[in-house]
Each structure stands twice: as C-alpha cells, then as structure tokens.
C-alpha cells in the first residue's frame, strides 16, 4: 500500500500530523491505518484510486475550471429562444444575494430552534405561492414540475382509491417519462389528444377516456405548446362529475394575468418555480411545487414537508414547525407514510419567495403583460416571413408558441444550426416528440427580449431561409 499522507489540507484541519497523533493517542490507536480495522482486508482497496492529481492551489483550480467553462456559450452572450420547461427570465439581484448568503446556502436539517430563518422563509414561500395560485396549502418544494405532477397524481390516486390518470398527449415528453416512471407500476397514465387547429385538449376524446376509474385529470395551463387552455372549468367539471380530481400544472409567472386554476376547478395545482428568480443553470434551476385547499384529505396526502406557523411559550413570538410530520416517511411510519421525502430544492423555494415578495402584485401583473406583448409581437413578426406560420395553433399564447417551418422545406435542425452561427439559439425542435407536426419549433419570448432582440431573430431567420 503506497498511499501517501496528505498533510495540512486547507479543508481538513486535522490533517496536521501532530494533531492526528494526539487524537489517535486519545482513542488508543497507533496509526491512521488502524481506524478502518472494522473493514475486512479483502474489501480494502490495495492501491490509490486512479484520479487526476490534486490541483495544488485554489488559483490553479479556479483557472482550470474556468478554462473548461469557457467552452460554454451562454444565453447571455447569445440570443436565446429556447423554453420548453426551462425559461430565461430576469433574475433580480436580490434573489441571488439572498440565496448566496452562506447561512441559507449551507443550512440543512436543523430544527426551527436553530434554523428559525429557514423555517420562516419557507413558510413565507408557501404563503406567497399560495396567494399566487389562490390556495391555502403549498408544500416545501419538490424536485421539479414533473415530480410535482407525478406526486399530485399519486395523491389523487390515494384520495380516490383509483388507478388511472388522464394526461394530455401534447405535453413535454421528458415530463411524461418522469410521471410514468413515478406512477409505475400501479397507476396508468392515459393520454388525451388535442384539437388539430387549436391545440386545445380534445374534450371529445377526454370524455371517452374519463370514467369511474379515473383518479385525476391532469392538464396544463399554459400548455406545453404555449397556448392558453381555455376550457379549464369544463375539464375540471368533467373530472368532478366522475368524482375524480382536477390537477392543473401551471407556469407561475403567468399568474399575474391568467386566472389561477383554483378558480376554474383545480383541486391540486402544481408547476415549476424556476421562472421565479432562479437561473436556468442548465436545467438545475427547476423546482416543483404542489398546492391544494386546506382540507385534511388533501393535506394528509402530501409526501412533502409542510411548514406551519404556531405560537411559542412566549407571548407575541412566532414559531414554526412541521405540520402532520408523521404523514411523511420521516415520521414513525416510514414507508407507510406518504411516498417519500428527503433533500429536494428548498433553496429555490426560498428564492421564489424572495422573488414574489419583491415583485408584488403589480410586478407580477406587469411581467405577465410584458411577456404577452413581446411574445405576441414575436409571433406576428415571424408570421410575416413568408414560408413560416406563426403561431401554428389558433389559440392565444403565453410566452411560448409553435412556429411552423414545414413550408420552408428545411428542417428545424438545419435552421437552428444556421441560427446558431449567428448567435441565435432557435426554439426547441418538436419534430421528434411531435412527429405529426412535421418541422415545427417551440419558441419562447419573455420580458428579457427587447424589440431589437426579436427583430434580430426575424432578420436572422430571413437570412437563413433565403440561403
């Protein structure tokens, strides 16, 4: 065994040999090697692991990693129109300031006695999202929208005792795969078609697929393809007619201008917090939420932690704690509790809270309106290009919209490649997930796009299509 000691590492105070000696003496051992005597020899590694040599200094480490990262081309230095589940919105400075505060960044599982601020911030986050979706109960965030939707369906299944859920065919395939895996093996997901011209959920097909076996109807608003699903109330009514649960997935940044699903019959609302002050992070910014009314039958089915407010032994003092803790897998019932809980995305929850507190009602209204205006402008300008149809569907869009390139006789892939050369990231290529649409792409326009940006896209596309 030739493993050499590693002395005085800045991250390991007790790597100092003298200290080790003192501590070893205290526990009655002679050498560090003795520490692992509990592990049988035949299980022990005989050689050093084959890893790159440690970088010798923080400076070199930084330069090394920065050199690698420089190979990335960012949405800041380029013009990005990708959305499809991860959206480029403006992140207020205050959001980054708060989530980089060491205390929040490095806290974990303490009690409210130690981590009072964490509990309050997450309680407030719950409350703020509650106002946005107009519901009384919101969970401490889960992984992402996909997980939130999957859990919503499992909740519905437990509440109704049923094993089928109806979902739209026109949804994000990745999200569908998450839900499918998480609902396996017992819950079946049944896909409902959309209306060809409008993209709206096909109510005829839906009626055929809903039955007494249906635990829930899950749909999204705005839909994955960016338009506003207009028949929310009808869909919810249909669910309720069969004593099924109406679950709506929502992009929270739309809720300054769009009706919250609770107001058109949703029993469970879920969605992604990433638009609310969280960087895209190559998809690492996603964070799921679930919201319901404050009814025991719903609350008791959440797998997540739910932070509640409560008094303390001192008058006038707020306290916080876990509501119905034993409901979770951290409670006494373990796997008999609801699904499972663990590390999720709490810091993004706190961040979304900061975002909503900063934006306020006016900010949320205005951002919704700005997004509507800018995306409509983009839609219209693109539609002026002869061979392009924009939007493909005859519905009102929010933020995203399908652009039809079929008439260009070029593939979206080709077009996007050319756009890339001009520093433009074109919309998501839909041709493999939605083969029936041929060559279409999902474009995303938010408050960060200026008129100049949009005009630049149009000009770039015109050039690309000319060549």
């Amino acid at each position, binding site marked *: 065994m030739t493993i050499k000691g590693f002395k005085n590492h800045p991250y390991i105070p007790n790597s100092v040999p003298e200290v080790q000696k003192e501590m070893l003496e205290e526990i009655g051992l002679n050498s560090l090697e003795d520490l692992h005597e509990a592990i049988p020899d035949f299980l022990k590694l005989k050689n050093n692991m084959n890893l790159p040599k440690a970088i010798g200094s923080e400076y070199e480490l930084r330069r090394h990693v920065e050199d690698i990262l420089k190979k990335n081309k960012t949405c800041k230095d380029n013009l990005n129109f990708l959305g499809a589940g991860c959206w480029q919105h403006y992140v207020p400075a205050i959001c980054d300031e708060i989530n980089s505060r060491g205390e929040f960044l490095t*806290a974990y599982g303490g009690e409210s006695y130690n981590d009072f601020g964490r509990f309050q911030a997450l309680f407030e986050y719950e409350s703020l999202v509650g106002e946005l979706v107009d519901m009384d109960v919101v969970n401490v965030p889960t992984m992402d929208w996909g997980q939130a939707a999957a859990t919503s369906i499992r909740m519905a299944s437990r509440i109704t005792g049923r094993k089928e859920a109806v979902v739209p065919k026109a949804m994000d395939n990745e999200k569908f795969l998450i839900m499918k895996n998480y609902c396996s093996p017992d819950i079946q997901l049944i896909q409902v078609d959309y209306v060809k011209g409008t993209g709206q959920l096909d109510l005829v097909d839906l009626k055929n697929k809903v039955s007494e076996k249906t635990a829930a109807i899950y749909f999204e608003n705005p839909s994955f393809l960016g338009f506003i699903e*207009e028949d929310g109330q009808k869909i919810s009514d249909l669910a309720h007619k069969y004593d099924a649960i109406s679950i709506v997935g929502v992009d929270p940044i739309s809720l300054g201008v769009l009706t919250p699903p609770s107001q058109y019959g949703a029993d469970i609302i879920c969605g992604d917090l990433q638009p609310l002050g969280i960087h895209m992070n190559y998809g690492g910014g996603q964070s799921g939420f679930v919201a319901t009314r404050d009814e025991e039958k719903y609350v008791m089915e959440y797998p997540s932690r739910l932070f509640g407010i409560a008094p303390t032994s001192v008058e006038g003092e707020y306290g916080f704690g876990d509501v119905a803790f034993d409901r979770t897998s951290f409670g006494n019932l373990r796997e008999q509790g609801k699904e499972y809980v663990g590390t999720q995305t709490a810091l993004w929850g706190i961040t979304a809270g900061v975002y909503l507190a900063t934006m306020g009602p006016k900010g949320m209204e205005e951002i919704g309106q700005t997004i509507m205006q800018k995306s409509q402008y983009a839609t219209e300008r693109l539609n002026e290009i002869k061979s392009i149809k924009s939007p493909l569907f005859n519905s009102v869009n929010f933020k995203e919209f399908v652009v039809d390139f079929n008439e260009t006789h070029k593939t979206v892939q080709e077009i996007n490649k050319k756009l890339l050369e001009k520093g433009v990231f074109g919309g998501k290529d839909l041709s493999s997930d939605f083969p029936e649409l041929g060559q279409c792409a999902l474009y995303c326009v938010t408050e960060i796009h200026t008129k100049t940006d949009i005009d630049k896209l149009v000009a770039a596309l015109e050039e690309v299509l000319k060549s």
Partner: protein
Amino acid sequence: MKRINRSAKIRNFHQAKWDEPIIFELSKKGERGILVPQAEESIVKAVGDGISNIPNQMRRKESPNLPEISQARVLRHYMRLSQETLGADVNIEIGQGTCTVKYSPKVNEMLARLPEMTELHPLQDEGTVQGILEIMYQTDRFMCEISGMNRFSFQSGGGSQAVMTMASIVRAYHDEREEAQQRDEVITTIYSHPSDAAAPAVMGYKIIYIHPDENGFPDFEAFKAAVSKRTAAFIVANPEDTGVYNPRVKEFTDLVHSVGGLCGYDQANANGLFGVTRAKEAGFDMCFFNLHKSFSTPHGCGGPAVGAVGVVTELEKYLPGPLVDYDNEKYFMNYENSNTPYNIGKVRIFNGVAPVVLKAYAWIMSMGAEGLYEVAKIAVLNNNYLFKKLMEIECIDAPYIRGKQRIEQARYTLEKLTEDTGITSGDVQRRMMDFGMHYWTSHHPYYIPEPMTLEPTETPSKEDLDEYVAAIKQIVKEAYESPEIIKTAPHRSVCHKLDETSLDEPSEWAISWRSYLKKTDPID
C-alpha cells in the same frame, strides 16, 4: 489592563434575533420592490395591451394578494432571516448525524455562479455546452473510480430520489426478466435511511426490515430467512447511522445474487470510506453518492442537490438518460439507453442539477486520490475521537460492538440521563441551541431510546470537537443540577419552546399566512 479571562469552555452565545414580522405584515399599499421591463412603445403600437385577447374566463380578475414592499425592506427581511439560520458556514456542524455537513469551499460556489454555468439552457446545442458536458463526463469517470461501478447518472436530485431511481432500475430489471410480479420485496435494515424503505415502497415493493444482532450488524440469520425468490433487491447503507460497518456485507450481497435479486448500496455518507473500500468489491450492483454530502456541495436548506446513481455495466441500459459521452473529439448526449425498451425513462427533468456536479468536480480536483483518502481517515478519526470523549460521560452510551472503530458517525443513547433526570434527548436538543449547536436525535422510530446521532466529518478541528463535547457536558451537568433550564430551553435562540399542539390538528394547523388569518380571530 488585566488580561481578559477567556478560559470558559462554553460559548456565551446568542443567536441573532430580529423578531421579524411575517412578510405579508410588511406590505404597504403602493410600495414596489422592483420595476419590470415594459414592452417598447413600438411593440405596444403593434400588438396593443397584449392581454385583452386572453379569453375572459382565463384573465385574472383580482391581482394576487402578494405583499407590496420596497426593495430595501425585502432585502432587510431576508438578510435578517438568514442571520437567524444556523448554516454550516457559521456553525460547528457535528450535530446533524447522517447529513454529512462538511465545508463547502467558497471557490467552488463562485465557479458555479459564473454565467458560463448559470446562463445555460438545458436544450442548447451540444456544441455550445462542451464545458459543462466535459465536467459531467469527467465526474462520472471519477465516481466510477471511487465506487468501482461502471456508469453514473446525475439525474436524481438528492439521495432519496437516488434510492427511488435504484428501485426503478430494480423494477425495470425484473420486468425485463418477467419476474416483476413474483419479486415484490425489497429488503433493508432498520438503521438504513427511511428513504431506503419509503422510495422502493412507492415503486410498489413490500419492505422487509432486518434488525441488528447484538453487535449491531444486520442479523445474518434473519437475513437468510428473508431472502427468497420474492426478493427484488437488497438496499442498504453500510455503515448505517450507527457507524457500525458490517464486515460480512459480501456474504449478504452474494446471497441476494444467488436468488436473482439485485443489491443497491446507499452511499449517501460515503466520506468515511473514500479510497478504503468500494461498492464493487462488496458485491453491489448499484450505489449512489450524495454530492451534497460526501462531495461537499452545500445543502441549500435541503437542495438543490444530486444523488449520483452508479451501476455495473449490466444495469447501464436502465439508467435514466441521456448520459454524457465523449467521442475523442467532443462531448455529447448519448440517448442510447433512453431508447432501450426497459429503460426507466426520466427521474428529473433535463440533465440534473449541473452546478452541483460542477462543485463536486471542483472539490474532487482539489483533493485527488490522496486527499479523498485523507478525508476518509480524518472523518473516521474525528468520529472516534468524539465517540471516545462522549462515552466518557457517564450517562451517555452507544449500543453495539466495542473495540472496533465506528466509521463516520454514531447513534448514541441518553436513556440513562432520562432515567436519572427526566431530561430527554429532545430536551437536550433544544438546550444545545443555547450554545449555538445543532443536535439531532435520530430518524423515527427511535429504535434506540433517547437517541442522539452525531457525524463530525473531516471538517471540524479537534478544538471544535472539544467545544461540542464541552457543551454536552455542561447540559448533562445541568440535567442533574438544574433541569428546569433545559426543560424550558432554548433561551438564546430566535424563539422559545414551540407549542406544537396545532401542528397535528387539522382545524388549527396553518400552512400559509392566509390560512393562519382564516383560522385565528383578529386581536382587537
């Protein structure tokens, strides 16, 4: 001037206490926290107000009842709340057993906050994300070397989801073999993490628990009795949170294999074993590492995080895709296994939490093989030093094997203290806060009575350990001399003892501010 006497061992601590209102109470009609970009006039001219064409029923009628607060006040509020949070950056992190809270170097955080990381869209063309792909690819290679596994996926957003991913793989594996119906049991141990039971249960598995023998090893005889053709998998931590390493682990995994089951290793808290022993040699088919624990990326109050799931070659095709590959010229997303018929699909959207992978990469690069080995040594040294010191306190005990070292953590019992004084482990927990310390009892149920679970990692110095022990000693002393101070603790925290009665009472609990307002009567 006389020298100031600093001989006291117990810190004269008080947590920042700001007595902050709930954010809604700060609202003042008309205040704004930020201004939002408006559409340019020429856009307005072209498209109008943008919202009139929203179908009426879908147009929000009343603005959301969010608070209206100026920016400085929002900032002040959250700054204060942050001070009221005992993050690892300000604290001696010993008292969160099985959480592996270690130092998260600031340089790594700064790297992860560069726009070259934060401003990447997950669907960008591969050619534009060669940097982050390289990091994911290399980290996969490192994880393989550390575990002996063959391929890693970084999709799982935490350890529990990693267990869920392992359980999904188990299901897919047996599905492909058409044994899924028959194999409906997952075996674990009572001291493995609750998620090792709960996540497989979501996937439809019955959970069989193995209890420890008198040494604290999972009882091999009971295990033999449990393993059968119904066994889908054995999912276990080793050591469990008792810190006792099961030396016969290979016999366990062999037995499971002999009946056609799979073995998944919960390596959330792997840092006591880096470079010492690996999943592969112990016979596991899968394992996972919590990058936010053993690999030092910060916990963020509970995520975002990564549970990196590694598998042997045979299981690679089940891993959620895409995986990152390299063709000697460029890195690319490999969708091959996503397209295999029994692939589990996805567990998290896109490519997992890449900044966490980046931080783990940077940490590994600052350690190398020798550094990781040193981490393992010192984590174990620290734990056993702490163990020795605590066991010298009369009313503290730790069940199970003596003589051998615990690995990186241990579960103790304060049963005797409770018997002698009535002070419970929960009481001690609250009192520890008065000295600025985390303290954790254990997961539920309390198989060990009045449990206390501590995990020092390699981060604290000997002085830190001594300070922690001194605080425990002080509390033990108080328990015998003046227990009231403990029962009424904390005294130096943001809040005092919680009145928990409402939390389990549907008519009273309040999970949001609006709910609280509805359920309580105004004070006049």
